[in-house]
C-alpha cells in the first residue's frame, strides 16, 4: 500500500516567532571587540610607556610624544653600570625558579593527601591550610625574620627562598583539580600495581599539566615581583633581587626615571618570555575547564 503526500502551501512564519541570530556577528560583535580593544590599550599602555621612556635621553625624559624623537641606549648603559643588574636578575631568576619548583612539589604532595586520603581531622587540617592563605605576609614577617637571622642567613639568596617552601594557594588549587580527576583511572592504576607515589607522579601529574602551568606562572610572577621580604633581608646589591635594584634609582634627591624605566624593562622581559612559552598550556587549561 502506498500513500501519496498532498503538497501543502507553505506560509511565512508568524511575527511572534523570533528569527534566529548567529552569535558573534553584527553590531553586538563590533561593540564587544571595541570594549576588548579599549581594555587591551588600558592594560598595555603603561608597559608601552615604560619601554618608550627607557629609550628617551635624559633631557627628553618628560616628552609626551608617543615614540621618542631621539632614541638612546644611555639609560640601559647607566643602569647596568650603576647596579649589578645582571647578578640581580640571576638572583631573581634563581629565587623564582626554585620557589616555583618547590611550591609545586610540596603543593602536589599535600594536595594528593587531601584529595585521595582520609585521615583523622583531615577536613580541619585542610581548612587550616586554606586559612593560612588569608594571613597577610606582614603578620609572619617578623617571626620569619628572626628565624632567618638566628640561622645566620641574613643577606643570602637561600633566605629569600626559605619561607616560601609551601603555598596554600598551590595546595588548594591542586587539591581541587585532583578531586575532579577520574576516580576510575586511579583505581585502574591501583589494579595495575601502582602505589600512591607512582599514581601521583606517573598518572595524575602528567594529566594536570594545564593547572600546573597556570599555577607555575602565578607563583613565578608573584615571586619575581616580591619586594618586601628581599628589602628586609638584603644588605648588599650582589645578594639582592631586581625589585630592590629598581628601587635604588628612587633616591631622596629625586627619581632617575630613565635608568629606572630601563631596569624595569629588563626586569619585565623574563616574565614576558615565560608567559610566551607557557601561554598555550594556560589557554588550553582555561578552555578545557570552560568546556567541562
Amino acid at each position, binding site marked *: 500500500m502506498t500513500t501519496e503526500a498532498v503538497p501543502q502551501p507553505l506560509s511565512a512564519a508568524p511575527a511572534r516567532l523570533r528569527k534566529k541570530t548567529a552569535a558573534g556577528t553584527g553590531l553586538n560583535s563590533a561593540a564587544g571587540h571595541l570594549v576588548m580593544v579599549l581594555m587591551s590599550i588600558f592594560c598595555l599602555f603603561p608597559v608601552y610607556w615604560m619601554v618608550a621612556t627607557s629609550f628617551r635621553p635624559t633631557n627628553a625624559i618628560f616628552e609626551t610624544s608617543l615614540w621618542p624623537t631621539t632614541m638612546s641606549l644611555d639609560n640601559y648603559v647607566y643602569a647596568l653600570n650603576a647596579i649589578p643588574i645582571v647578578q640581580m636578575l640571576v638572583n631573581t631568576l634563581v629565587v623564582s625558579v626554585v620557589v616555583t619548583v618547590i611550591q609545586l612539589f610540596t603543593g602536589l604532595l599535600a594536595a594528593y593527601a587531601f584529595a585521595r586520603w582520609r585521615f583523622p581531622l583531615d577536613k580541619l587540617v585542610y581548612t587550616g591550610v586554606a586559612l593560612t592563605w588569608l594571613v597577610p605576609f606582614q603578620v609572619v614577617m617578623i617571626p620569619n625574620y628572626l628565624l632567618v637571622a638566628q640561622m645566620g642567613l641574613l643577606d643570602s639568596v637561600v633566605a629569600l627562598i626559605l619561607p616560601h617552601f609551601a603555598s596554600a594557594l598551590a595546595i588548594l588549587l591542586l587539591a581541587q583539580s585532583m578531586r575532579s580527576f577520574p576516580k*576510575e*583511572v586511579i*583505581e*585502574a*592504576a591501583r589494579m*595495575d*600495581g601502582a602505589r600512591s607515589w607512582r599514581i601521583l607522579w606517573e598518572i595524575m601529574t602528567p*594529566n594536570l599539566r594545564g593547572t600546573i602551568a597556570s599555577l607555575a606562572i602565578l607563583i613565578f610572577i608573584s615571586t619575581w615581583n616580591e619586594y618586601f621580604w628581599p628589602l628586609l633581608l638584603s644588605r648588599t646589591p650582589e645578594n639582592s633581587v631586581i625589585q630592590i635594584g629598581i628601587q635604588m634609582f628612587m633616591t631622596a634627591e629625586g627619581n632617575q626615571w630613565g635608568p629606572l624605566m630601563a631596569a624595569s624593562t629588563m626586569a619585565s622581559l623574563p616574565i614576558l618570555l615565560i608567559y610566551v612559552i607557557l601561554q598555550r598550556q594556560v589557554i588550553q587549561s582555561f578552555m578545557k575547564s570552560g568546556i567541562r
Partner: protein
Amino acid sequence: MAELVLSHLKKSYDGKQVLHGVDVTLPDGHFVVIVGPSGCGKSTLLRMIAGLEDVTEGTISIGGIVMNDIDPADRGCAMVFQNYALYPHMTVRQNIAYPLRIAKVAQAERDRRVEEAAAILNLTEYLDRRPAQLSGGQRQRVAMGRAIVREPEVFLFDEPLSNLDALLRVQMRIEIKRLHKRLKATSIFVTHDQVEAMTLADTLIVMNGGRVEQIGSPAEVYRKPASVFVAGFMGAPAMNLIDASVDVDGLVALDIAPHLPVAEAQGVAKGTPLVLGMRPEAITLSFDSSRGLPATVDLVEELGGSRVAYCTVNGRELAVVLPPSDERYEGREVYLQFDRRAWHLFDRTTGTRLDNLVQPRASTRRLAEA
C-alpha cells in the same frame, strides 16, 4: 586454578548495609555474569572482589587464598572499567604495558606480551596512538588489552559495554565471548542489560536489593525463575505477572478472570495470595471467540522479526509476542490462549517460586482447555 569463593559477604556504608550476605562459589574458567537493576549491589560486589572496596564481613578467596586484606594488584585480578579508565597521556602501547612496567617485567618480554595482546584485539596498528584518537570500541579493547597482559586468574568487567552504541555493543560482546573461550580465565561480568547477561554467561547471578535472587545457567534462570523479581527482570518483553489466588476447589484463579481457574495448586492454602507468570511468547492471540480470554489490543510494537501486542484484560495489561505480519491489531477485540506448560507460580507475599502447580486435570475448565 582460580576458583572464586564468596562466603557470607556483607558490605555496609556508615552502618547502612548494601550487601546482605552473598554466598557463591564460582568454578575455575567459568564466565559468570552478575545482573540486576541499578543499586542492587552488583558493582559493589565486583569492586570488593577487585579489592577496591573493603569487606565489612565474610571472606573472598581466590584459588583457595583469602584475599580480604590483600592489595588489589596482588589478587590476580584484572579489571575492565565502564568508562575504559585509560591513561590519557600514554599511547596505547604504554597503556597496555603499564602493569608490566610496574611489575618490572623485562623490556623484551614486555614488548612480546603487548604485541601479542594487540594482535588478539586487532590493535596493532593503533599502538602508537593516544586514547583520545581512538573510537569507543577501540578504547574498550585497549582496556581489555591492559587486563590481558597481566595474565590474571580472574577477569573483572564492570559494565564495560554500557558506553558503546548498540551495534558496537553486540560486536564487543561477541569479542569478549571469543576472548574468554581463548583465554579460559574465570571472568565476572557485571551488567544491568539482560541480553548481555543471557548471551555471555555460563553462570548467571541475578541480584536485587543487595541479595542474590538466583544462580544458574541462563536457560535455567529464564525457564525457572526463582522469584517474582527474576521472572519480571529476565526477558524482554518482561514476563506477564498476574495476581491470582487459590479458590475453594484448590484451583488457582486469576484475579482478572476469577471464573477461569487455570490449574491446581497442591499444598497451598485456600485464599493464599499468589502471582501467576506467563511469558509473552507463551500466549497466542486469535480472533476465534469460541476459545480463550477476551482482550483488547491497545498497542503493537514492531520489532521486525516479531511484534509485541499490549492487550488489556479487565484493566490489566498483558504483553503477547506475535509472529511478523501486516495484520492490524490495534483497537480490536481478540482472544488470548495460554501455553499451560509455561505457567510460573509465585507466593505473592514472599515473592518466591512455588513448584506446587499441577497441570490442569480433565475437570479444569475453559481457560486451561484453551
